[in-house]
């Protein structure tokens, strides 16, 4: 315990409370709803508790670096630390039967440098009576620097979004919307779930966080539930995610199936530490199976091809939800999970190849669809799919640190863009169609300014956050295969183009307003614009945590080089980075990608700079544009190929149920009924008589049998 106190600023147990603060807030708001307290105040428990979590997370970011720096010192020390962690858990101390983390602990594997904390034992896996103590699914948290990066930006962006929501979820007179308190309760629940997902130390707890964020997504997409499209979108999101989770669950089962025979007593085959330790002893086929099944879950949660279809529809939710859940945090869970499990994925090149292929398809496809939409939030949604696909490519190319770097920068600028779009929507009377307004720059100056920063960052404009992280991925993809690199660069150009198409259509040109906007639309209140500015600062500068002035093969402007602080920090986690992953592409690549970004912006300026009322691309590109606009008819295809046949199968089953099985039973009983027809005379229809007759009959049968038995024996 002493050793532990000297290495961290705050005790680990205190960090372990981090997820529970927002849950507490959600419970308080829930009680306020139950007691019918005034909705006006519903924001404060959530803002306060999320702020506590964010503060804890800031300190944790420093400590997580210390833990991992310390732990990678030596194997012997790691063993001692494991015992120390065992002692911190009350459960373990009191159990006395040996435990999952204590007992006979084999030396720590080299690449699992974090600390595991067991909160309590959750689900029994039987065998409790045996000598070694049972197998458990425990609630364990795992702390390393990857946890630190994730929890840091998750809580920070959450705090900004929660503050923004105080103003957003009100009408023009400042009165709270219907369901104001419900909204905040769900947000609190979400932050809890997301933090649990990030902190989870074994696969089942990860699955818990995974499903709970999906639940919050479901509840918040369906926030405007009387609207049929919102209700349908919520259901779609949950079910498409469940398709992924189906694979994910099977992946967890497979891990147990394959890893369990290798483990020793006291090791839990569901803990990250144990799985990563033994993963190399599995057969290649087993690793590939696990990898592909886990990937299924990531495809659903991170909205990747072919399971991306739920994310554009999810824009039915309130804008802060789109910003927080569907851009900055929840959808990055898939990337996080693959990065976390990079010992598994790095061991199977086949799975990595699949990830790259799906990532490239997703990136290009989503970018093209984004170029032909008019709904601002949907453009951003497709952009999110495309950017997440970038991260997948990074993961597949053996550069998960770059993937996580992009997750982190993307969180700032994409949350900013969604909140900006929300600000526009709020003032335009919930109209978000780019054809219905233009020239809003004069009415919404703060929104315009901050959105400009966000758009530049997303477009990969030099020196802003998106530039650095995207560039690393492009380098890694060139190292993987030049074709992938070229496609990534093309996507980067398209990204710049569609982002600024949206920007110009919204803020440039003559001022046009929809009828819903009212008489005098004005800039959003300060409680909304301040988070925008904070995030804009992040969107501009967050990238510099991943940039250094020394070392590295290539540089930008002669002194800014990739692989900065963040990467060194991440190297203390379970992430496995291919040493050569970042070497591809050559020295000129950063300048080329900067040029492409500026070129994309310039092209958008030429075509959309005056916010024309008829989309010029729709005329130039014709049929191709229509296909993009119709989203490649993928939804229609899924409906015909999967939904309708499955429902048809349901109808078939039900028809069988009503006629077939009952009919069969009717046939089977026809014989005794035929016999019974002759005996009908002595039947009076009373149930008791039947019962009596049946009992007598059976008894007689048994007695006859006994008698025969006795006679025979």
């Amino acid at each position, binding site marked *: 315990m002493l050793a532990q106190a000297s290495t961290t600023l705050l005790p680990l147990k205190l960090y372990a409370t981090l997820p529970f603060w927002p849950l507490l807030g959600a419970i308080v708001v829930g009680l306020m709803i139950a007691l019918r307290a005034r909705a006006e105040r519903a924001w404060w428990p959530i803002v306060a508790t999320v702020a506590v979590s964010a503060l804890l997370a800031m300190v944790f970011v420093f400590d997580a670096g210390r833990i991992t720096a310390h732990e990678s010192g030596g194997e012997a020390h790691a063993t001692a630390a494991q015992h120390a962690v065992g002692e911190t858990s009350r459960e373990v101390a009191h159990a006395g039967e040996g435990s999952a983390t204590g007992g006979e602990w084999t030396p720590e594997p080299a690449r699992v440098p974090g600390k595991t904390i067991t909160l309590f034992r959750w689900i029994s896996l*039987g065998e*409790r009576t*045996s000598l070694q103590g049972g197998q458990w699914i425990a609630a364990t948290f795992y702390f390393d620097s990857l946890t630190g990066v994730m929890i840091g930006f998750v809580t920070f962006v959450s705090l900004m979004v929660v503050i923004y929501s105080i103003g957003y979820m009100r009408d023009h007179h400042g009165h709270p919307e219907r369901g104001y308190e419900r909204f905040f309760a769900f947000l609190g629940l979400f932050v809890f779930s997301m933090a649990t997902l990030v902190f989870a130390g074994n696969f089942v707890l990860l699955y818990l966080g995974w499903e709970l964020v999906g639940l919050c997504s479901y509840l918040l997409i369906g926030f405007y539930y*009387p*609207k049929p499209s919102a209700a349908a979108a919520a259901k779609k999101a949950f079910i498409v995610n*469940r398709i992924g989770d189906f694979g994910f669950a*099977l992946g967890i089962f*497979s891990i*147990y199936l394959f890893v369990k025979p290798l483990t020793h007593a006291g090791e839990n085959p569901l803990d990250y530490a144990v799985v990563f330790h033994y993963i190399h002893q599995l057969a290649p086929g087993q690793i590939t199976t696990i990898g592909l099944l886990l990937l299924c879950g990531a495809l659903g949660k991170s909205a990747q091809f072919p399971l991306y279809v739920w994310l554009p529809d999810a824009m039915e939710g309130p804008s802060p939800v789109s910003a927080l859940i569907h851009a900055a945090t929840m959808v990055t869970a898939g990337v996080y999970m693959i990065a976390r499990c990079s010992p598994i994925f790095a061991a199977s090149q086949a799975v990595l190849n699949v990830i790259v292929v799906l990532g490239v398809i997703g990136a290009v496809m989503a970018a093209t669809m984004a170029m032909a939409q008019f709904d601002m939030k949907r453009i951003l949604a497709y952009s999110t799919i495309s950017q997440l696909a970038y991260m997948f490519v990074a993961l597949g190319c053996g550069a998960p640190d770059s993937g996580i770097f992009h997750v982190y920068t993307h969180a700032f600028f994409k949350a900013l863009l969604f909140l900006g779009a929300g600000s526009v929507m709020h003032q335009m009377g919930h109209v978000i169609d780019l054809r219905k307004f233009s020239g809003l720059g004069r009415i919404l100056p703060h929104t315009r300014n901050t959105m400009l920063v966000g758009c530049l960052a997303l477009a990969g404009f030099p020196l802003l956050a998106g530039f650095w992280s995207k560039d690393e991925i492009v380098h890694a993809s060139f190292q993987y295969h030049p074709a992938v690199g070229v496609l990534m660069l093309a996507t980067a150009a398209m990204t710049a183009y569609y982002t600024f198409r949206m920007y110009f259509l919204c803020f440039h040109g003559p001022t046009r307003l929809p009828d819903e906007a009212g008489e005098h639309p004005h800039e959003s209140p300060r409680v909304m614009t301040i988070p925008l500015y904070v995030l804009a600062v992040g969107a501009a500068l967050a990238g510099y945590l991943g940039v250094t002035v020394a070392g590295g093969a290539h540089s930008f402007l002669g002194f800014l080089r990739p692989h900065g602080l963040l990467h060194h920090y991440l190297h203390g986690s379970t992430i496995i980075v291919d040493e050569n992953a970042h070497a591809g592409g050559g020295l000129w690549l950063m300048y080329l990608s900067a040029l492409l970004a500026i070129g994309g912006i310039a092209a958008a300026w030429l075509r959309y700079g005056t916010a024309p009322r008829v989309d010029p691309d729709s005329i130039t590109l014709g049929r191709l544009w229509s296909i993009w606009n119709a989203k490649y008819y993928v939804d229609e295809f899924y409906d015909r190929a999967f939904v309708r046949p499955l429902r048809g199968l349901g109808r078939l089953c039900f028809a069988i149920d009503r006629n077939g099985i009952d009919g069969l039973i009717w046939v089977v009983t026809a014989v005794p009924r035929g016999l019974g027809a002759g005996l009908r005379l002595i039947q009076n229809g009373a149930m008791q008589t039947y019962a009596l007759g049946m009992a007598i009959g059976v008894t007689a049968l048994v007695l006859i049998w006994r008698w025969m038995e006795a006679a025979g024996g």
Partner: protein
Amino acid sequence: MIPRSDAMAALGVNLLIFLPLLAAIVVWTLPERREGLAPRIALAVGVVVFLVALPLWLATSAEGLLGQTSASWIVVGNEDVGGLRIAYHVALDAISAPLVALTGLLVPLAVWCSFTAIKHRVREYYAWILALTAGMFGVFVARDVLLFYVFFEFTLVPLYFLIGIWGGADRRYAANKFFIYTFVGSVITFAGILYLAIRAADLTGTSVIHFDLRMLSTLTGLSAAEQSLLFVAFFCGFAIKVPFFPLHTWLPLAHTEAPTAGSVLLAGVLLKLGTYGFLRFSLPLVPAGAVHWATVMGWLAIAGIVYGALCCWVQTDVKKLVAYSSVSHLGFCMLGMFSLVPFGLSGSVLYMINHGISTGALFLVVGMIYERYHTRDMNQLGGLARKMPVMTFFLVLFVLSSIGLPGLNGFVSEFTVLFAAYNSTTLGPAYGVVGASGILLGAIYMLYMAGRVLFGPLKEPAGTPDTSAGLTTDLTRREIAILVPLAIAVVALGVFPRVITDSLDPALDHQVMQRVTAAAAAPVAPFASATVSGETPKHSSDRRTTPGDTRGDTIFTREDSRGLERLRGPDAGVPELAAGGF
């Protein structure tokens, strides 16, 4: 209050049977002008049995029996000339106690939810509910197999009348179908029980045939063929009760027509009589039969999971949808049980409890909607969330519990069951994969239902909601009070399932798992004696072989056979309150 002495516990156990029975007679014979007392008496009895059942469950430990009472009931002949002895032998143990607690929880809620729904033949109605209560408790506490059978059959009668008198439009047909279906099945089970007892008397060398569960579940010497046939005989009664695909067709009809309380108790408790029967009797009494049929059971289970779920999706009647979901859910329960690994059994028992809570709760909420709108047709209902936010909260919570959201109770059992099937050497990954598709299909049909009923624009039949029976548009306080205990249980059992499994797991291990393991290790009789005499195939490695182990060809071997010896030895530490009379 935790019962301190075994005498108190015995009093409690007997109270669970006789208090409702007595109350049923009292309620039945109430004078007509006192009719208003009937629901109150029934509720009071319900609360009392809950207050008795809960501490009894908390007091059960992993080992031994609680509140054992044994007396001769029917004795024919004596040891010299041979004969028959049926004992009134009741007790609780760690396997039955959670189910007793579940029954104790659901009975008062089922009674309370009938207050506004039942308006005619009130005394009779509550009398039947109380009689049913006695029967349900009797099934779970019976330690004599024939006594179990008597209670098992007895539960049919009250439910038959509850459906037939207070049910919906098609109630007569539903009641008859329900009765005949289950009765025919259980008669075959009865024959199986008799055969088993007679053979047991032969094998143990006693001339008096008796049905003691402990004796039968430590019996050795039955041939594999006999066990296999006996398993089929037990299957007939239990599988229909479960209801196990393809013998489930009575259930949707019975559920749809039954009054709400009947549905709650049917789904919550009565279906568990079937699964409990499999766990308590089929597995330990004829383990070789269970091992022999395990893959077939697994097949039927996954077929039922998928088939039931697909049927759910095309329903328009909410109640029928929930009824079909039971077919799917009980498939999960059976899948876990016949994975024949320790956590599969434990997950299966948890599934019984959790299904009882969430499906019971769903039926309660559906009943509350029905009382207001007089329809359960999803084409006529929609968007109720805006009108009934409190109801919506509960319905969404129970739906989430039902589709196995982690953190709620459904997840724990669903996950362990699938986990067990996937890791089982009897069943294996293929069963786990098909079974796990149920978690996807479950989300599809349940969210389809929630979406239709709760969300979208408001849609309600003309002239509704009908609040004439003292109801309000949203739930009344009484209705909230009915649902709150279930909501608490949903969360509590999701976060801390160990409150059940801590005592359950060792009990399952000793009473069921070791029998099955031994049977699987040596499928030809005499298998159990081989285990005790130490001839178990010993593993050369020092590593314990566990169910997840795919390298061994046995399901599960362990060197620790002390549990079995304990089972076969005299009941140390369990006082016989009344010694049997022969």
